[in-house]
């Protein structure tokens, strides 16, 4: 009886246990890992991925999947980069556009994210294209568009650089010792948490993902829900790209490639269900952090970065397999 309880406790909190074990293992190999600076680095690295995961979480809860977010973040990075170049930079992208305040590149990428999300939503909800395939198509379109954009003279397909200091400050600066990026990520998490748990819209998102047909009967406009979640995810993805560009001080078309997979994996190991209707913010956050710890930690202890992929893959498979046991035990 008691062993049953313990094993149940272990299964239910497997994520925390994984994370703690990993941190412990890395700390043993290299004790300096346990420092405020490392913590801050891990969080800063995670910040854009948290945005992607939060957008993805909302989509997955509504019963969908947004495969566009990686390429969309890439587009957001390039687009915001082109508007954030210094006036004196010799490869200035839009030579004829006057000096713009630093909010403009951020707003531009946000709006483009909304528009792309809107298109994705219509393709999935109105044209009934399966979410996976709609995303696959949109990915290609976004990547192609991004390459074409980068080809514009005088840039001619080089990675973007020469950003204004105000823009890179958004990526590297801090207030009271806390990075702006971390602040953005925390705000986004708070917004998503409030959206999902404290608004009727959130309740309708859960209901739509939990049983689409039943939600329709209950009078919920599931098309509106679809549009909201894809636009929300699109805007966050594009904004994440903007953050990436600001942090690294550069941008190119292959930025954030494959990040949609990381976002999906973070949500799923954080307890979200692909069937829809289940998922929560702390779980998805933890999913992102686990991947970042693997990323950062393995490099920290000097292990080949190739091992990251193997460890990541194992964690996804094991976490989901355990999760399935949790459900099968119930039914």
């Amino acid at each position, binding site marked *: 009886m008691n062993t049953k309880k313990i094993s149940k406790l272990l299964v239910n909190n497997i994520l925390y246990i994984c994370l703690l074990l990993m941190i412990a293992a890395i700390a043993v190999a290299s004790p300096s890992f346990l420092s405020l600076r490392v913590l801050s680095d891990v969080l800063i690295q995670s910040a854009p991925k948290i945005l992607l995961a939060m957008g993805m979480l909302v989509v997955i809860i509504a019963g969908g999947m947004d495969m566009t977010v990686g390429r969309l973040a890439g587009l957001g990075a390039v687009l915001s980069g082109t508007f954030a170049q210094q006036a004196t930079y010799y490869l200035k992208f839009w030579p004829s556009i006057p000096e713009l305040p630093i909010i403009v590149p951020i707003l531009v990428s946000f709006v483009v994210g909304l528009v792309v999300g809107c298109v994705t939503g219509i393709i999935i909800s109105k044209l009934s294209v399966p979410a996976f395939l709609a995303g696959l198509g949109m990915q290609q379109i976004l990547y192609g568009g991004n390459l074409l954009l980068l080809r514009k003279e005088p840039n001619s397909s080089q990675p973007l650089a020469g950003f204004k200091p105000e823009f890179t400050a958004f990526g590297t600066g801090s207030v009271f010792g806390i990075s702006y990026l971390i602040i953005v990520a925390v705000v986004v998490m708070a917004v998503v948490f409030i959206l999902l748990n404290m*608004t*009727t819209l959130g309740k309708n998102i859960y*209901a739509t993902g939990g049983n689409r047909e039943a939600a329709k*009967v209950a*009078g*919920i*406009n599931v098309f509106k829900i679809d549009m909201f979640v894809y636009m929300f995810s699109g805007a966050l993805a594009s904004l994440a790209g903007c953050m990436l560009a600001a942090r690294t001080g550069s941008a190119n078309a292959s930025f954030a490639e494959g990040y949609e997979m990381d976002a999906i994996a973070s949500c799923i190991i954080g307890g979200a269900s692909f069937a829809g209707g289940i998922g929560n913010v702390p779980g998805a956050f933890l999913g992102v952090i686990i991947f970042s710890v693997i990323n950062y930690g393995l490099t920290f202890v000097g292990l080949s970065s190739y091992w990251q992929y193997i460890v990541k893959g194992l964690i996804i498979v094991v976490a989901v397999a355990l999760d399935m046991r949790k459900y099968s035990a119930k039914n």
Partner: protein
Amino acid sequence: MSDLKYVLEAADITKTFPGVKALDKVSLRVRPGTVHALMGENGAGKSTLMKCIYGIYSPDEGSIRVNGDEVQIHNPRMAMDLGISMIHQELHPVRPQTAAENIFLGRIPYKKAAGIRWVDKDRLVNESQKVFDRLGLDIDPKQKVGELSTSYCQLIEIARAVSFGAKIIIMDEPTSSLTETETEILFRIIKQLKEENVAIIYISHKIDEILQISDEITIMRDGQLVGTWPAKDMTTDTIVSRMVGREMNDRFPPRTHKPSNEELFRAEGLCSPNPHSFQNVSFSVRKGEIFGIGGLVGSQRSELMEAIFGLRSIEAGKIFINGKEVHIRRPLDAVRNKMALLTEDRRKTGNIGPASIADNTLVVEQNVNPGRYRKKGLPFIDYAKRNQDAQKYVDKLSVKTPSLKTQIQTLSGGNQQKVLLGRWLLSEPDILILDEPTRGIDVGAKYEIYELMEEMAREGKCVVMISSEMPELMGMSDRIMVMCEGHNSGILEGNEIQEERIMLLASTYKAEETGEQK
């Protein structure tokens, strides 16, 4: 005629499912070269019996003899090898493949060369063509099945059964998706098969058809055999009276409501854009009335009510509430007009499985009236108010649950149904539409749902109930509209409500008799 008396003999077949005795010592004997009709109400056990013979279910007791030899049939493959073929009511054609490939599904003719089985396309097409020719069907073997209409899928399915060289063909409601001309084709094929000494077991609710083509009729009721008679000795009346004839039990609460004379809901000439669905249906419901809708599977009752609720489109017709015409294009319009629809299939269109009981209870009201559950002046949900309301309906309907946070999918069917009912009661509807409200739930929960219907009617609301359970329909309704093949075939009231009359209306629709208006 063959020298064998019976090609199929099933004797004393008993089959029990958890809690239900679906078949109780049922026997069926089929002569070669005849059409043997199998009749009974929904749930009489016809399909279960056929599934036992076809090897989908294994009977608990009883024996099956084919051509005089006792056999054990464990799966459909064995049934086919014994010369038994079944055409299911719900078809599963492989749409992207050709007619010929569908005919030879799972046994495509091949040529062997270099150790590999190559598809023999010529033989595939020629042999399919031969089958079609033999049955007089004008189908191109190379045409993709997806491009053909549903009725052709039915005919291809029949051709497939014939191509097996089946000696016994079971047809479960074969005409439900066929037009009249296609039905003629089917009957011609059946006659031809009879001449080829094939026995056909024909399940149908349509009495006219049965009398037209069958040689013998077996009638079942409540999982038991009523008897087998030569078709020529039977009439519509004798069939109906033998199909029913059940005693009414005291399973309903006392009737305490009294319908007023004031009309609350009226539908005029509703037509579906789908010609096989409901057509030209008119009816009205008064305040404080329980209005039953009867009919057989496929009579389009659910489709009609779903269309009224805005889940399906309506091509023509009008809906009035309190004498005022309303336009309902989506369920939200219906909810705003104080309508509620408890759907037929809980799992598919009712439960939001992973969500809690509280969320399931609130899902309608918080969407249509979000202000009710918000904190004053803030856009945030007030959980205290939500839980209070959810608890109120959990108590009112005595839902047995550990807590409000419990996922609805972990509850029993009866408790799930009560939560869903609570969801709609919370929105305080004037018109409550219940589609098979007591399906798959225990007797106790049924009684509580009946009591609730009484209460709603007492309060002057309309209760519209679709039910396939005859006692429930008769025991609860003030008036009963019977539907047949998408039409209103008659409305019964007071002492007209008799099981025989309902069955008769459900299986025969004649426009001139019911004097369809408009």
